[in-house]
């Protein structure tokens, strides 16, 4: 039986979440930005599992399964969009995609 305090477990999930946040803020490559979003989703799911284990309820694991479904859909759509962007602009730099910007 795991006897690590629950605060340490939540702290670990928080560190993973903020690593994903830093990656999302710093990187400009769309593949890396999507990877950072994945890290953040995963750490959110980790908090659900920690809480579900702590309170000894199955609801946390159910929520993780829902997060898994949402993540799968999100990745599929985002990768299809990235493919289209790459075919249009020949780059994955998110700064290059500024067609909506007012040119004046």
């Amino acid at each position: 039986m795991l006897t690590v305090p629950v605060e340490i477990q939540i702290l670990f999930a928080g560190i993973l979440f903020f690593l994903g946040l830093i990656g999302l803020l710093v990187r400009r490559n769309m593949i890396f930005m999507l990877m950072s979003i994945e890290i953040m989703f995963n750490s959110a799911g980790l908090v659900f599992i920690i809480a579900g284990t702590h309170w000894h309820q199955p609801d946390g694991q159910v929520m993780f399964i829902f997060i898994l479904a949402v993540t799968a859909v999100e990745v599929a759509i985002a990768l299809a969009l990235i493919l289209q962007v790459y075919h249009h602009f020949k780059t994955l730099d998110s700064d290059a995609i500024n067609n909506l910007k007012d040119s004046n």
Partner: protein
Amino acid sequence: MDVFFYIAAVVAIISTIMAISGRNAIHSLLFLILSLLAISVIFYLLSAPFIAALEVIIYAGAIMVLFIFVTMMLNIGLEREAEKKWLKPRMWILPSVLAAVLLINLIMAIKSLPQITAGTGAIQPKQVGISLFSTYLLGVEIAAILLMAGVIGAYHLGSQKKKVKHRFLEIK
């Protein structure tokens, strides 16, 4: 048991740092798979063996393979010049400081939690299944609709349409 948790946590954090700071997309994806496997070990230690298996099969197996396929399809091994200009060590400072401030905020919030009593014993997959298909049945159906919408949307977005432009709109 505790030492396994700390080992897996350290492995997960280091491989996540490598994943977000790498220059080669494939290497970063492989580090991310390592991070997901370490988190799966933590799920197992948190007495959620079913979720640990799902993490390995769906996250590390399906979603990351999708990433790697797209990365290989686009043939972007090394990053382009544009990001090389961006990705100086100086650029990491401000986002890291801001995120660290938020993390300290979170630590303070965790510290001020009231002491709560934990239940004991593992949660069996049977309980999860019963809860999933009784209490959360509506959620399962909505997730099914979402997956269907995702399939249709990915199909439409991924299909290569032949671009037809009016001849006056052709960009010279």
